[in-house]
């Protein structure tokens, strides 16, 4: 957020100093397709799923190939194991495994001859109390941001991830936070996005999913947010693939997290 603010200033400076933008042809290299794993195991079976797909060249279209017929197994440190079932192409669901806070979960994905593994420890639940709304005036436009309320547990490192839905549509912004500044406090920080396509207006339904995630998953989303989000100042920082917790050369993440949902009408 901080860097974004700086770049918005650079942008203003640039506009004052005159600038122009155009689409160009730039020859990019081709790539070998890589496996992409998006895996969530939560305490709510509705949100537990592993999706497998493949990466493609930049110049290709935006339809991504699902990876079917893989062997996907999740085990935990309490001796449970579950082989996930492919419910639709590329999407695998646990049959009976439900996440328990405090346990460590292990993911194994086997496709053709490759094996990918990951582990994630499910943090404790932090009670999601309510949602409030804040509005700010940004360049003459009133913008409304939702703010989840919760009590951060003291003396431990907590990491959070939020998903925001407006009238059923998901915001693609990444909302993550840690308790660096708010350890042990009652938190009601707004979910602010500088590049949000969804406009929250009074009367719209706003749903928020709150997850407690482990440090590695936080790091994944933190590094993912550095390279995504509205075209960003790509060449100012040196972009790199997000730091995955999956070994074996796949892209993506495995998160075992708690999940809570709240929904309210914006005002």
């Amino acid at each position, binding site marked *: *957020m901080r860097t974004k603010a700086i770049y918005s200033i650079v942008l203003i400076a*640039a506009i004052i100093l005159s*600038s122009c933008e155009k689409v*160009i042809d730039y020859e990019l290299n081709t790539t070998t397709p890589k496996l992409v794993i998006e895996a969530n195991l939560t305490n709510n079976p509705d949100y537990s799923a592993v999706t497998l797909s493949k990466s493609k060249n930049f110049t290709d279209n935006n339809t991504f190939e699902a990876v079917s017929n893989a062997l996907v197994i999740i085990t935990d440190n309490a001796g449970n194991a579950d082989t996930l079932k492919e419910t639709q192409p590329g999407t695998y669901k646990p049959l009976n495994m439900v996440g328990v806070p405090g346990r460590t979960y292990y993911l194994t994905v086997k496709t053709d001859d490759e094996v990918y593994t990951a582990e994630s420890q499910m943090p404790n639940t932090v009670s999601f109390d309510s949602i409030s709304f804040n509005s700010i005036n940004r360049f003459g436009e009133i913008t409304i941001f939702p703010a989840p309320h919760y009590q951060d547990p003291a003396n431990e490192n907590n990491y959070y991830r939020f998903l925001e839905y407006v009238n059923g549509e998901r915001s693609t912004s990444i909302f993550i936070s840690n308790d660096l*500044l708010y350890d042990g406090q009652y938190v009601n920080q707004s979910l602010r996005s500088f590049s949000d396509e969804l406009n929250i207006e009074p009367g719209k339904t706003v749903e928020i999913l709150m997850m407690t995630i482990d440090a590695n998953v936080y790091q994944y989303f933190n590094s993912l947010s550095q390279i995504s989000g509205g075209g960003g100042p790509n060449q*100012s920082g040196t972009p790199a693939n997000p730091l995955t917790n999956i070994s074996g050369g796949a892209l993506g993440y495995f998160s075992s997290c708690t999940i809570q949902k709240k929904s309210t009408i914006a005002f």
Partner: protein
Amino acid sequence: MRFNYFLRWTFLIIGFLFVSSAYSQTKFTLSGSIKDKKNGEQLTGANVIVKEIPATGTAANEYGFYSLTLPQGKYTIIYKYISYNTDTVSIVLDKNVKLDMLLSDASTQLQEVVVSTRRKDENVRSVNSGIEKINPKEVAKIPVLMGEKDLVKSIQLLPGVKNAGEGNSGFFVRGGAGDQNLILLDEAPVYNASHLLGFFSTFNSDAIRDATLYKGTQPAQHGGRLSSVLDLKMNEGNNQKFSVGGGIGLISSRLNVEGPLGSDRGSFLVTGRRTYADMFLLLSKDEDTRKSSLYFYDLNLKANYKISDKDRIYISGYGGRDKLGVGDAVGIDWGNYTSTIRWNHIINDKLFSNTSVIYSNYDYNIMVNTSDDEITILSRIRDYNAKQEFQYYASPRNTIRFGFNSIYHEITPGKLESSTSSTNFENRFAWENAAFVSNDFKLSEKLNINAGLRLSSFAVLGKGDFYTVNNKLEVTDTTTYKSGEFVKNYMNLEPRLAVNYMLTSSSSLKAGYFRNTQNMHLISNSTSSNPTDKWVPSSNIIKPEIADQISLGYFKNFADNKYEFSVESYYKWMQNQIDYKDGAEVLQPKAIETQLLFGKGRAYGLEFLVKKKEGRFTGWVGYTLSRTEKKIDGINQSNWYAAKQDRTHDITIVGMYDLTKKWSVSALWTYYTGNAVTFPSGKYYIDGKVVWLYTDRNGYRMPDYHRLDLGATCKLKDTPRYSSDLTFSLYNAYGRENAYTIDFRESESDPSKTEVVQTTLFRWIPSITWNFKF
């Protein structure tokens, strides 16, 4: 142990030098100062030549002091300085003689000639290679962006020096990073030499007398940064009469006042500059934009006073600040303050002393006002610095410089505050010391040598927590140190050697080797200078960066030094280079070491320069062929990769032509290979969106950059009492769309596709500035 060894060598060398000058017949010393008759400025580098003994002479040092020891006898001494009238004095040297000379400026009759502060063939004769001297007058006619004259931007036009991007005042020397340049303003280190996110340098050209850039072998009195030293000296001010000068430009105005202090005892100078780009914001209809701010100011002060014939005191100060703000939401301000007090003392006619006490401060504040909280980030670095230097003029063939430098650093890497709590990044303290000795001596008429040795030590001090980090970059242990306790001390011996062999009277071969170390590191993940880039000292984990450079050059002048030609090559090895790991958490509160990776670097290149220095037409052509690479474990699969500032080709052509006495025109053309950048090669779908897939670090290139700038200067009035001129410039005259950024996004017209977008900043930027002096 190592230290004792060093001391023994130092004493041996010094001893040898003293002894070698002690043999021989009765000798006497001629010494004094050389100054401008009109305004009393010291003429650094003015030549003192002995007519009776060819090739014997000396040059005035940076304070205008000279000393020459000769056998007893009668001599004709010639005092000579470019664009000044030569003066000849006959003396009988049967005792030590003190002779202060005032030379009169001849440039009034030679308006068309580019004024130069150096000896005509200095490029060929000086021992050190890779030294560039720039005088504001020399570059005054080069067209500049938005009419804002900038010495640093003129330096970027030299071979071996690259700019940090479109319109940026940051620079890279011989493959080094931006933080590897030691920028000294009257001896005070300036930590962030840029304004407005890099578009302007902090150096108001009205306040600067001259700038020297050492890109090759650095003299032993300088150290602490790997790739170069940019040594800027502030104007002394006129000690003969009061005068006021200034300039009014499109985005900024300048004013300076100078005059004498006491009768012939000293002078002062005050200059100021303020930009008003933000005035345009007031035209906006939007209230938040109107409330936004975007400006900077600079203030330079300098005064000197002669206490006695042997003592002079100089006081200089600089303060500058940038303010950027977007409505009430975000505000950033940052700036430097430096001050220097110097005492020049002539101990005797052969021994000159300079004592300096220096203070530098750089800080930034960021305020982010979210709807529910206000977060501020503060970062600061402070240096308390003392320097003692002696210059001993042993004989006309032999000059020795020695001294020490001691700096106490106080670093606040960041303090993060919200309304309810505050997190302090660990404050750091360090004590940096260096002792140096260097010796200029002529072995023969053809062979000149400058040998130096610098011993640097960097003590990391408490108080604070220091960490042990494992290879997974996790903190495994924390040790707490008390205030003033030694955590770690790094000692480095830095040899410096430069050799000049005169092939003919107008050509020479120069070779050099030097080792440099750096203990203050700028951790940055951007190419342009950001106020938020973080200065971090060496710690128990961060080791001093070390560079070794060798260079070889051929220098030749033609047509009575009207034309200069040089070709230089260099190879540089760098150790303990630092970079952020992939996906680093920049706001890491405690151990920054958990976000860093270390490796090595190498840089090599070839630099050509052809320059025409005199006549109605002046200018130069410079070309650099170079390569800069890094190898850091954990980045780019631990393979070598091109550093961001790696540019294969870099060409600059500068021409200035005096059309009439009133009008002069100029042009500048530059071309360079695009910087190495990291672009995506593929893409994939995750977390509800399309995300780019990256392969090689810095595996792509920005498009090639080229640009033509045009300038014209019209003298409106030119009398001794009042002068004024108008300068016009047109930046990017043929409107080349150079890429400032290249972004990747989902196509706006067809969301099923992705596209590449280029942003261009400056095309056809005209400007006009009015300068005056009375």
